[in-house]
């Protein structure tokens, strides 16, 4: 196996690990609550900002 091929396999392994960890991280039930809370914050921000502009 050439060095380049080894690098390809390592790269693949790295990307697979990252994908698995991303799935683990984003499928935690609390994640939706963080996003929901932050969406609320941004919604209020948008309303306040538009109010400020007018």
């Amino acid at each position, binding site marked *: 196996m050439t060095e380049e091929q080894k690098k390809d396999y*390592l790269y693949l392994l*790295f990307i697979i*690990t990252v994908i698995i960890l991303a799935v683990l991280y984003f499928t935690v039930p609390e994640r939706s609550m963080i996003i929901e809370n*932050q969406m609320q*914050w941004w919604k209020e921000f948008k309303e*306040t900002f538009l109010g400020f502009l007018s």
Partner: protein
Amino acid sequence: MWVTITQYIFVNVLLFSSWYIYLFTKRASISFIDRLIGSCVLGLAQIIATELVLGLIFRMLYAGPLFWLNVFMSSTLLAFTLWSNNSSTSTMGNVFSELNEKVCGFYRTMRSDTLLVVLFILLAIKTCWIVFIGYLFPSYTWDSLYYHLPIVGNIMQSGAILENPDNFQIDTFINIFPKNMELFFLWNVIFLKSSSITDLSQLLFIIIGILTTYSIAVKLHIGAKSALFSSFLIFFTPVVILQINTNYIDIAVSVLLLTAVNFLLYESLSIDNSSLPVEGHNRKYPLFLAGVAAGILLGSKGSGPLFTIIIVSALIVQEIIKHRKQIYPRDPGEKGNFMRSSMIPYTLYFILPLIVLGSYWYIKNWVLYGNPVYPMEVSVFNITIFKGLYKKMLDPLPSLIENSSYFIRLFHVWTEKTEFYLYDSRLSGLGPLWFILLLPSLVFALLRSIRNKEYNWLFVSILLIVTFAVHPRNWTTRYTIFMVALGAISYGSVMDFFGKKGRITSIIALVLAAYTFLTVNSLCVMPAKIREFMDLPAKERTIARHKPFNIDIHARQEYGYWMWISNYIREGETLAYTFEPLFLAPLWNDGFSSKTVYAGPFNNHDWLRKLKDRNVTYVLLRTHSEEDIWIEKKSRALTGIVEESGRQQVEFQMVFSDDNYKIVKLVKAEKS
């Protein structure tokens, strides 16, 4: 107001630039980035040292003496630097041309990568937002109000660094905590006569943190673009973003550890001179800067000794490896003087600044309480070395992870099973970048460095991983921010290793940074409140108006008297409190120019005399307390006298009252 702002800007510019120009003359031994970091560290050390001298020895830690002492020191340093380098004009010219060249280099590197530009724009927008919020809102976080800012208040009102009477448990902690970082908070209040930007003190440290991460990465042979990209990533850590505009000290502690490690790398790299980022190598300058950073760290937090022991141990191991031929010579020709070539410079340049800047607080505790880390008991193998009040940490483990194993605890915290981020996030805070990208990068880079015997990599990794592993609360993310930097450096190495095909990981990093950018808005600072505060004059932007949710449920009955204090208590006036308040900080006015004193326990024989002796202007008391009933009776009696004699004055004048608290003004009555 403009005078105080000018004074503050002038002293800071003079202080940091004089150190930068001094370090510029050492450019053969220290790289450009390290000189920037070094001037910040030395400037900070000067601030702490001058405050210690004025506060401990002369007991005149006021704006005037502090300003003139620092102006004198920095001017002397500047004059000495320019005088000792024959042509002062050419020195200054070289400083500016180097700065110009580096800024152009930075611009070129940035232009070469769109992802880097986008990441930098996100970082710049968030920083501006943090500065805006930090300026607009007062310090609202729990520990800031509980002890970080009261330490500042106590020092400012007495002009000295003194022990306070142990009236309540928090006073014990206020007395025993190392206070280097609070001295920096004080620096950001004392000239401005306002605490409006002291909650941005940690901004300096995240800038140093980004520079340090970059510098370590470059020393470990990571390309400039990857090093820059990875150093920006440490900013996108939720607990970092949320803590920058608070009077907490966790970013500072982690960054000082990284800074010490960065300067110690010169020692590590000198084993293999080809790796040094500079042409020559004079060990004393980086070693001294490492000692200064470690000294500030030691004197900043109770965990300082743990960090310092690990740094010193790493240095000793490194010295032994470097001088192994002198210690165990194979032939007589190799025998050298280990003490002279290693231990003496090591002691002189590293240990001395470490002790000078960090040890005072521990020596004082040892002298006063018989234990350097009082009130914690120190025992080894069940043998008590220093007696204390507590054997374990006071905060119990959160029930969610109480029965979990070591690794499950970390997994729980790193997957962030919480509904929102908070500045002191206990069970979250490192964000998705750490768990998804930086953690596997760390494992990858570590395995690679072991395989390739990259000792410098191993030195940095082992030092930080051991620090993490032995930290008793490593599941509290704010205590382990330095691990994100290690992960970021590792990610830089991964980027370089995979080259062009690794581009997709940069896109992932950017997406995760953008996710963090969007999801770390503090729920303590809601947009409607920001709008409300924008319309208020500076004086009215108080914690009582802010009502942040993190303290609201505990503090809502305190808001009334907090607001009254911030509106009416003037410079030099003294507020006496008669009970243990929820927080001490709101008892001072905004610029900490008023004074507070505990007027208890109540004694109806000499209580009034005590108040008069302490020049008390106002007394804060609980409704229906002993003091309240006594004052009511006394006022009624006095009013009777006043009515009979026709005199105008009474002894107590109620100026504030609500359901729970009263504030009465002490007015001198004429003797009948």
